[in-house]
């Protein structure tokens, strides 16, 4: 009886490992289909990307580590890392990469995936994209005051005070246009409707 049970457990384990391998491969395949992910298997781990990265000091994993982690199928760790949000998209790494890995474009694609899969730890980062999108949708152009107000964190008094001060300083220099941009925007919904059906998955 116990022998039977052991056999069953062993079988379950094999299946589990099988599933895990499958899903790891799935993630790699998925990344390879994303814009920027086409060449991740070409990475030779030379470290040129991380050596030249101006914001690496603030990342939890360096760019070369992230690529390695993708190649190992570590989906959740990659998508919930701070690296994908800390990357400033300066393209220094992509310019220097001897294997033409387009890391910044991949970061944009992974941000998109992290948002869709609800794996963003710090909502302030993904909210920026959401609000930016909403405002462009509403006016057809960017309206800075509205973006600043939407991003204000009313629970953090210090940052609130700091941002209000910054806003007032901008106003005083005539660098904040309070009136919303005026343009005809009926075309926006037509584009959005069409692209939403086909949006990259």
């Amino acid at each position, binding site marked *: 009886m116990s022998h039977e049970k052991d056999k069953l457990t062993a079988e379950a384990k094999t299946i589990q490992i099988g599933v895990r391998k499958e899903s790891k491969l799935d993630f790699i395949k998925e990344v390879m289909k994303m814009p920027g992910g086409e060449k991740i298997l070409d990475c030779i781990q030379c470290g040129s990307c991380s050596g030249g990265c101006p914001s690496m000091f603030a990342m939890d994993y360096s760019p070369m580590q992230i690529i390695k982690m993708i190649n190992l199928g570590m989906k959740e760790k990659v998508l919930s890392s701070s690296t994908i*949000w800390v990357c*400033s998209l300066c393209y220094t790494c992509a*310019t220097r990469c001897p294997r033409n890995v387009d890391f910044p474009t991949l970061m944009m694609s992974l941000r998109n995936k992290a948002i869709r899969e609800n794996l963003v730890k710090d909502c302030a*980062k993904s909210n920026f*994209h959401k609000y*930016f*999108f909403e405002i462009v949708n509403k006016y*057809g*152009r960017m309206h800075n005051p509205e973006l600043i107000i939407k991003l204000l964190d009313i629970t953090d008094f210090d940052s609130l005070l700091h941002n209000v001060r910054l806003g007032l300083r901008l106003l005083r220099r005539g660098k904040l246009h309070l009136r919303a941009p005026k343009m005809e925007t009926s075309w926006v919904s037509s584009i959005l409707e069409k692209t939403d059906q086909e*949006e990259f998955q």
Partner: protein
Amino acid sequence: MKYAFYPGCSSHSMAKDYDDSTKAICKVLDIELVEIPDWNCCGSIDAVYSFKPLYSIALAARNLAIAKKMQMDIVTPCSACYFTLNRTNKILREDAGTKSKVNEALANLGFSYTGSVRVRHLADIILSDIVLQKIKEKVKIQLTNLNIASYYGCYLVRPPEICNFDDPEHPTHLDKLVETLGASKVDYYGKTRCCGASLGITDEELAMKMSKDILVSAKNSGANCLATACHLCHFNLDARQKDIESRFDIKINLPVLYFTQLVGLAFGIEPKQLGLQRNWVSSRKIFPLSMTSVS
């Protein structure tokens, strides 16, 4: 010379000074800028792209499609727009699937677009040999007392397959302009280092650290002025400079000017017309000294 002008959203708010000085010097240089009628936001580099990629490509393509009807090359003063519009061109040229999806969305608006319009940065136009020669002839005031650190940032030169008007690692076009205006160029480490760009909104602390490195390296190399061609860089380096000084307890006090403002000053245009009063770090202290007339 006549171009379809794509001002970008910031030109009406944060970068009003850049817009004013651009128009002022283009008038002197006989460069006609015809604003693209009814232009919309290009979607920015990642702002919309990370949320809805296809939609952001369609947004940029709409502007390009309008410019195609105008039968002119596009000129934009904004480095982020320059990158985004050129990236859209590249995607539409190389990716047939995306091209047909975007064109389906544009068809409702009566547009079709395949990536044919050339997009140039304002700096690319102004810093071409022909225009530089013209600038040399029109300079009224030599900016001899200025040691200018030209700051290129990212999207003016990187990635080279999208933004390719100068060397991505060691660009020199702005330095040529600096010498044409009678000023001295400064070689420094931060020339193409990233200022943090839109991280200033989502992670201010990080952006301030990145901007600090650039400002300090320019200052330590003997610069008394920094020239830029991007409103995001200008915002991070100028508007945040006082915050950087107090955060890191250092003294920088380095005026940051758009390259168009420098050209305007050399042309003898009133500083107010160039929007210099909008700068946080006052540039007043460096200009009266350098205004030694040519004639």
